[in-house]
């Protein structure tokens, strides 16, 4: 009798522990088969001189020491950091602004939301071509403005080493910020309206409402987008590849374009794997900080 009484709660406890894992089972299974398994192979290749085909020779840390001494790697890493800084500020600000202005609007909200979101819908190659036309050094908006007497925008933005990276970031941001509006709006609309009503009764202005109610309420979503921004900034590839392939003279090189060039241009797949791993390492550090903050009780 007594034994029965003790096993009952224990069994329930065992079941309670199992249930969360059942919810996690599908995502875990897929992840192991498709990402973890195949990736283990590439982790091994980072320590070899693999060309991408045939036999691989173990060379220890040679790829990593070469990476650290390679000026192109350093340029790429700095560019990734610049990219991160830009994308942590400009699109986040624009996204919050758009969502904040849009949240109280009933008439035409769907129109605005759709309008902002459409650039995000379009594939990067297409967007890149659109901006190539607009910023065309001979027939684009710059030369046109120059003819109207405003010469200082007449620059080959993608072709000049000092501006290439920022021009690409501009185009990428153009297609990206509208997505953030939609994400923040979804979060803002889940905020309890009674909070706003209470604030207004107390005479809060727009800014105070935003700062003291909206922002704290959407904090999990905001932090999530900041985190993903950092990760994606380390992975950024397509707009850069399509617009400049990392050029001119590595001016817009980032780690992902260097991985691609190494793996499929120079056929140094082992080195590419090493650079790829270093990207994951940087992301891992950022994620570890995120997790540590959460452990400290930040509700994010």
């Amino acid at each position, binding site marked *: 009798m007594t034994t029965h009484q003790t096993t009952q709660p224990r069994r329930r406890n065992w079941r309670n522990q199992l*249930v*969360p*894992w059942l*919810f996690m089972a*599908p*995502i875990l299974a*897929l992840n192991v*088969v*498709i*990402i973890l398994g*195949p*990736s283990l*192979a*590439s982790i091994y290749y980072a320590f070899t001189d693999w060309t991408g085909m045939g036999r691989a020779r173990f060379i220890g840390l040679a790829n990593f020491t070469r990476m650290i001494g390679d000026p192109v790697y350093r340029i790429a890493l700095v560019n990734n950091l610049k990219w991160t800084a830009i994308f942590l500020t400009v699109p986040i600000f*624009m996204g919050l602004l*758009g969502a904040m*202005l849009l949240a109280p*609007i009933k008439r035409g909200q769907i129109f605005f939301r*759709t309008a*902002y*979101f*459409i650039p995000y*819908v*379009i*594939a*990067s*190659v*297409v967007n890149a*071509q*659109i*901006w*190539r*036309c607009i910023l065309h050094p001979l*027939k684009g908006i710059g030369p046109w403005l120059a003819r109207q007497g405003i010469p200082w925008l007449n620059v080959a933005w993608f072709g000049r080493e000092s501006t290439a990276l920022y021009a690409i970031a501009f185009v990428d941001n153009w297609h990206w910020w509208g997505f953030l509006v*939609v994400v923040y709006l*979804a*979060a803002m*609309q*889940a905020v309890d*309206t009674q909070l706003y*009503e209470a604030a207004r009764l107390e005479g809060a202005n727009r800014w105070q409402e935003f700062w003291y109610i909206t922002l704290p309420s959407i904090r*999990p*979503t905001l*932090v999530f987008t900041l985190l*993903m921004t950092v*990760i994606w900034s380390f*992975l950024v*590839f397509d707009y850069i590849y399509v617009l400049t392939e990392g050029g001119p003279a590595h001016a817009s090189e980032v780690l992902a374009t260097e*991985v691609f060039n190494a793996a499929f241009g120079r056929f140094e797949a082992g080195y*590419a794997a090493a650079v*790829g791993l270093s*990207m*994951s390492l940087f*992301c*891992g550090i950022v*994620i570890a900080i*995120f*997790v540590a903050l*959460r*452990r400290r009780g930040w509700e994010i």
Partner: protein
Amino acid sequence: MIRRRSRRVRSLAPNYVILILLVVFSLGPLLVLLSNSLKSPGEVGRNPLGLPREGLAWRNYVEAWRQGDYAVTIRNSLIVSLSTIVGVCLISGLAAFALAKLNLPGADALTMYFLVGTSLPAQLFLVPLYFIWARLHLVDNLLGVIIIYWAVYSPFAAFLLRSYMVSIPSDFEDAARVDGASEWQVFSRIIVPLTWPGFLTAGLVVGLWAWNEFLFAVTFLHRPEVMTVTTSYYNFAGRYGRDWGLTSAAAIIMIFPVVALFLALQRRFIEGLTEGGLKT
């Protein structure tokens, strides 16, 4: 309802002014795409920015539709995108619930693992994956890429959904649990309806990614009858010769269904909000 009356009416005019400026910024450049889609290849070179001056080349659309084999690829992409949306929402919804609401041991470690996994450049695990997929007959099979999208997009969706679920007060679920609801019932009857906009957002985003995805699609789908819109589209941007009039028309054909889908989802989005009962 009575409370609403006490609201001070606040002018929305400044909002509209800024919002309209942002619309111009967002959509203005797309006019370039639209007007280029109606130019001959020669004219795009001579006049890449202005309106078509040498007659409207409507045949670009006919040619793009025919040469891109869009009748087939749009159907395939719809299948892939819808399956991705449904699958990812289900898989990541379950995971997000476990991460946000169930006391999952090792949740932090899992978060780390998934996010680091997201950060691995896909090019690095393509070859081993191809090896497995070829043996499972998942190459040249839409299901093959659908499963890959499930795996690759679910972590992002799970963390997006988690962020929505975390902000829901636990009173609702606790009440249900006290009433004897199972965790599945808590998930499907309380959490999902409350985070409905989140699911729509996640579904929309991954559907869009699946629609525009190139690397996996081009690597795993070789036969014309399984190709997707991106492969159609990239065929126009081949190694030699870019007819940007034709390519722009092809781009617009590719964009059109997604914008339609987005508009449709937007309506559900608003409905979902009112039905979700969060504002009561």
